[in-house]
């Protein structure tokens, strides 16, 4: 199919639209960083970008390789400690964080620690890093990830990072800050939110050309399908131009497809 954008560009654009002017967002490298840069250069010039390693509000010129490299403090307002960044999150000033992971379940719990048995793992991944902290302490967690049955699983092998845990009120009962939690999941197939009471993943919009079968065939668990859902609006020419020319001219992220 001849499309005027690829999946990466679509996911970045949707993520960017979710970051309103005046918000604070904690990002990692890659897609989240590109999304935050795009948001700043389109509708949200007053978006404050932070990095967990200590960078606050840089004027990002190029894509960082590490969430701590010097790009994350280029003409920044502050360069600080990781503890202070985490304390900003815990105190409640940070609106959004972006995460990924090897596995996600229907409550938005994420695994980035091990596949297989914990003590003799088949695959050891890096672990939480800051992911658990950001998902615990920022108001809204957004996940951007490709969607397939290996990632969207019934049960994650290890809950590295909290989503809604066992659904319902279990997240608050565990002691995590009130009214926080997974907000949206943005994939190459659609955009998902969570049911108000059960906290199960629920379809919000399907990308152009995608079907409910695509959702079903790429997910091990059942995603709730409401009576009404939207079709994702495509990236505009303006968004694509800024993304390609100003955000990621070297195609480091958008060229990954």
């Amino acid at each position: 199919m001849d499309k005027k954008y690829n999946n990466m560009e679509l996911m970045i654009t949707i993520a960017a639209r979710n970051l309103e002017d005046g918000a604070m967002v904690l990002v990692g490298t890659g897609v989240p960083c590109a999304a935050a840069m795009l948001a700043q250069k389109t509708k949200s010039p007053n978006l404050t970008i932070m990095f967990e390693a200590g960078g606050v509000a840089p004027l990002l010129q190029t894509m960082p390789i590490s969430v701590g490299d010097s790009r994350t403090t280029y003409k920044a307002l502050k360069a600080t400690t990781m503890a202070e960044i985490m304390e900003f999150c815990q105190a409640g000033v940070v609106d959004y964080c972006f995460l990924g992971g090897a596995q996600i379940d229907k409550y938005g719990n994420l695994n980035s620690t091990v596949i297989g048995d914990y003590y003799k793992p088949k695959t050891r991944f890096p672990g939480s890093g800051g992911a658990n902290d950001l998902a615990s302490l920022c108001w809204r967690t957004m996940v951007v990830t490709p969607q397939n049955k290996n990632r969207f699983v019934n049960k994650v092998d290890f809950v590295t990072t909290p989503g809604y845990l066992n659904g319902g009120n279990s997240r608050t009962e565990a002691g995590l800050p009130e009214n926080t939690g997974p907000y949206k999941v943005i994939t190459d197939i659609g955009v998902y939110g969570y049911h108000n009471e059960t906290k199960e993943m629920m379809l919000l919009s399907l990308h152009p050309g995608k079907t409910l079968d695509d959702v079903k065939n790429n997910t091990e668990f059942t995603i709730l399908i409401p009576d009404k859902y939207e079709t994702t609006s495509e990236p505009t020419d303006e968004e694509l131009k800024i993304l390609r020319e100003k955000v990621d001219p070297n195609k480091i992220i958008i060229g990954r497809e």
Partner: protein
Amino acid sequence: MMKKGSGEIFTELNVDKMRDFFRHKNKRMVDKKTTVKEAIKKYVNDGDYIATGGFGGVRIPAALIHELLRQGKKELGFAGHVSTHDCQLLSAGDCFNRCDASYIVGLEARGLSKNARRKFESGNIKVTEWSNAALSWRFKAAAMGVPYLPCRTMLGTDTFKYSAGKEIECPFTGKKLLAVPALYPDVAMIHVHRADMYGNCQIDGIIVADDDIAKASKKVIVTTEKIISNDEIRNAPNKTIIPFWCIDAVIEVPFGSYPGNMPGEYYSDEGHLAEWLEAEKDPEALKKFLDKNIYSCKDFNEYIEKNGGAEKIKKLKKLEHLQ
């Protein structure tokens, strides 16, 4: 019923014993300049628990870790607090048998270290899980001289279940909190931009956890891009991130974070880091790679010379300044 993690605490937790230790540190302003070789020989013992400063591939004490490998230090414990290239090095040298892990075996966007994964997948390394904030606050608790800090992260997850944290009830509000225990490393290795011969250190850019790590550790070895005069320190006291009494050894090592980034000085050598990942695919290739880059080198300068020397550094300086 308050829950607790099943992981092990690898380090000292007696705050009064640690107060006594810090009381008896040498607090005189003495010349602490030495060599990398001497510092590692004198201050790091087999079995010690170590912490490395910086952020994995940013402002890392690479020269000190190389020497740790050359001297064959073994059975260390270490704080895997965004430990990327440093974890890769320690794994290559087979230097450790226990780890507080918040971020290990990966190199962020660059990929995963195959060799570090082999070590951790062997089942021979004792691991206690944490998050980045938990480890930061564990250093902070030690720096503050309290046995733990309360926080609101990790609750309800397997990261908590395999940590050594404990759920507690807030004595004022009744809220459920996570208590993370103080972490007092035996030795810290930190690379900074500028230090005087007494160990007063200035850092440009992000500090990560290095201020607290320096205050929490029994012994601290610092490498610095440049040794500056005590006058320069006194002219800008607000720039002193680590004060002299924390520090045991000071060594001038220009480009001491290579192949890592040094904010404001030089960017990371992505080509060389890619060579590392490539070499790790085959144990034989890795052995040759390590012989060339670490074991056959008399010092860190030889390592840099073998990988492009002054020309390479010039290129990385340009990259750092977006030229």
